[in-house]
C-alpha cells in the first residue's frame, strides 16, 4: 500500500495549522519502548490526545552523548527491552496510519548506519515517516545519508546551536527541509527551570536565512518556557520533561499524566 500524503507534507501541514491558530506547534519527543514496550503505544497516543502536533520517536542508543540523564535512562530501559530501529519505524507507521500525524525518528548515527542508509530510506518512506533528526551527524557528515533520503523526499533535520556562527548558518540553513531545529542552550538535553538565554538571538539569526518554520528544543521544562517562546519561534520541542512526566506518575496513570502535561504545553503555546 502506498500512502498518498508524504511525511514531509504532514510536517508542513502541522506548522501551517499552528500558524493559522496563531500558536506554537508542539513537538513531543518520546523514547520508543519507555517505560516498557507494552505501555509505549498508549503513551504516544496520549501525547497526541494532549495536543502534540508532531511526534519525535526516540531511537535508543547505548551512548547518547548529546543527552542528559533523563533520555540516557529512558534509552537504557528501552535497550534492555531490545528496542531496535525496526521497532521505531513500526511504531511510527502505526501512528501515521491511525492518526495521520507527522512523525520523525530521532537517534544517533550508528544504529542507522548499521540498519543501512538505503534500507532506512526505503523503510521510512514505506512507513510515511517524515524523516530523521540525528544529533551526532552534522551537515558535513551527512552526504551518504542524504543521498539515500533525498530521492524519497525524506527530511534530515539539522540542529543549530547558540555556538553556530553566522557564516555557518548562512551556508547550512538555506539547505534545511521541513523546519529548522534550534538548540535553546549550550548543553545536553534535559529539562531546565528557565529557557536558555541564547535562544531568541539564535532564532533571529536563523530567520535571516530561511522562511521555514523554526522550532526550539533542548531544555524546555514546561508551560512557562513555552510561553516565553511565543512570538519568538514557530514551534517547541519537549522531550525530557515529557519523559519525566511519565516517570513521575503511577503506572496506571502515566497516559493521563502525559496527556495533561502535553495539554498544558498546548495551552501555553496559544495566546
Amino acid at each position, binding site marked *: 500500500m502506498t500512502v498518498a500524503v508524504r511525511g514531509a507534507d504532514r510536517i508542513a501541514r502541522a506548522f501551517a495549522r499552528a500558524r493559522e491558530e496563531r500558536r506554537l506547534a508542539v513537538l513531543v519527543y518520546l523514547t520508543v519502548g519507555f517505560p516498557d514496550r507494552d505501555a509505549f503505544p498508549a503513551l504516544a497516543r496520549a501525547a497526541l490526545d494532549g495536543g502534540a502536533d508532531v511526534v519525535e520517536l526516540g531511537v535508543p542508543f547505548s*551512548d547518547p552523548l548529546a543527552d542528559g540523564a533523563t533520555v540516557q535512562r529512558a534509552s537504557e530501559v528501552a*535497550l534492555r527491552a531490545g528496542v531496535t*530501529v525496526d521497532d521505531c519505524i513500526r511504531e511510527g507507521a502505526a501512528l501515521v496510519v491511525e492518526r495521520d500525524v507527522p512523525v520523525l525518528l530521532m537517534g544517533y548515527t550508528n*544504529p542507522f*548506519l548499521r540498519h543501512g542508509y538505503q534500507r532506512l530510506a526505503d523503510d521510512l518512506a514505506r512507513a510515511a515517516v517524515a524523516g530523521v533528526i540525528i544529533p551526532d551527524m*552534522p551537515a558535513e*557528515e551527512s552526504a551518504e545519508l542524504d543521498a539515500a533520503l533525498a530521492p524519497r523526499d525524506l527530511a534530515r533535520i539539522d540542529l543549530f546551536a547558540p*555556538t*553556530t556562527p553566522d557564516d555557518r548558518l548562512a551556508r547550512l540553513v538555506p539547505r534545511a527541509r521541513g523546519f529548522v531545529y534550534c538548540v535553546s542552550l*549550550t548543553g545536553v538535553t534535559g529539562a531546565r527551570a528557565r529557557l536558555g538565554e541564547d535562544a531568541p538571538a539564535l532564532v533571529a539569526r536563523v530567520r535571516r536565512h530561511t522562511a521555514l518554520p523554526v522550532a526550539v528544543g533542548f531544555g524546555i521544562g514546561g508551560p512557562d518556557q513555552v510561553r516565553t517562546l511565543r512570538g519568538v519561534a514557530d514551534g517547541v520541542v519537549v522531550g525530557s520533561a515529557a519523559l519525566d512526566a511519565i516517570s513521575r506518575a503511577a503506572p496506571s496513570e502515566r497516559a493521563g499524566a502525559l496527556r495533561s502535561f502535553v495539554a498544558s504545553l498546548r495551552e501555553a503555546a496559544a495566546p
Partner: protein
Amino acid sequence: MTAGRYGRFGGQFVPETLMPAVAELERAFDEARADEAFTAELDRILREWVGRPTPLTDAPRLAAAVGLRRVTLKREDLAHTGAHKINNAVGQALLARRMGKHRVIAETGAGQHGVATAAACALLGLECVVYMGTLDMRRQEPNVFRMRLLGAEVRAVEAGSRTLKDAVNEAIRDWVTNVRTSYYLLGSAIGPHPYPAIVRELQSVIGREARAQHLERAGRLPDVVVACVGGGSNAIGMFAAFLGDDAVRLRGVEAGGEGIAGGRHAASIVGGREGVLHGARTLVLQDGAGQIRETHSISAGLDYPGVGPEHAFLSASGRAEYVSREDAEALEGFRLLARTEGIIPALEPAHAIADLAHVRGRHGADSEVLVCLSGRGDKDLDTAIARLAP
C-alpha cells in the same frame, strides 16, 4: 587525503554545538605547531619535566625467552607519571593555555591519562576535571589518589559498563555544556578530527626517538615494530616514524580479553565492524542493531570498544597488521618481562610482550623487534596480585 579523513574512516560526528569548537581547535593547533615559541616550550618541558628522550633498552634475556634475535624496548614507562600519556597531555595542556581555556576536562580508563593530565594542569596552573568509570576507579585505585593529590577533581561515572567508553561520553557532555570556557583534553588517538591528528603528532616523539636510537644502536632499522592498541595513541606515536619504511612491519596488539569467540574482549580491529563512535567513523565493537557492546579486558587502558580511525585505515590498507592477546597471555607477558629484564610493565604493553612469541612465528626468529613499552606496572599490582600466584 582530506584533513581528518583516513580513507573512509575519521570525520567529525559531533553535536552541532561542538562543530565551531573542533574548527577552532584545528586552527589553534596548526598555529601553535608553526609557532617556534610554542614548540620550544613543549620541547623544554618534555626534556626537563617529562624526562625525554626516554631510553631504548636492549632486552637479551627476554629475546632469548621468546626465541627472537633481538628485542629492544622503548621505555615510555620511564617517562614522568609512568606512561606515554604524558607526551600528549602536556602538549594539549599547553595548547589549552594558549587558547585561553583555563578549565580542562579529560576522560581516563587506566587512570594514566588522568594522572598525566592532572600533572600537566598542575604544572601549568589549569583547573582539571577527570571523568572515570567506577569499575576503573576500583581497579586503578592508586591513580585515583594520584589525580586528587595533583589537584584534579575526579568525577565518578556510573553509566553503562562504568569504564572508559562511559567516561568519554560524560566528558563530551561536559564539553558540550562548557565549550566556551573548557578544553577537552582527549587521551587517545580517537574522537572527532582534529584529535586523532593532534594526539598522533604529540605522541610521534616516541617513534622519532626510537627510530634514531635503533639506527644508532643496531646500525639498522628494526624488522618489526610492536605496540599495544587501546585507542591507539602509543601505537600511532610509534608507527608514525616508520610508515615510510616499507620494510618495517608494524604490528598492533589488541586486548583479546577472555577470547574473541566468546565476545568478552576489547579487540575493535580484530573483532569489530565499521561504525561511528565518539565522533569518528572507525571499527567498533557493536551488536547487530548498532548498539555499542560492553567490552572486557584485564587492562583498563585497553578496555574500549573503538579504535583510532588511522588504525582502522592502516588495517584496511594492510600497511599495519593487528592481532589480539588474551588476559591470561598478558599476565604471562607481565611476569615474563619482570623475570627476564627486571622491568614490571603495565598490563597494556604486557599484551605486546605476550605477542613476541607469535611475532617469531609470523616473522621468523631472525627478526629484530622493537616494542613500545608504553607504561609501568605499579598501577596494576592489585590486579596482578589477585590473578598471579607469586
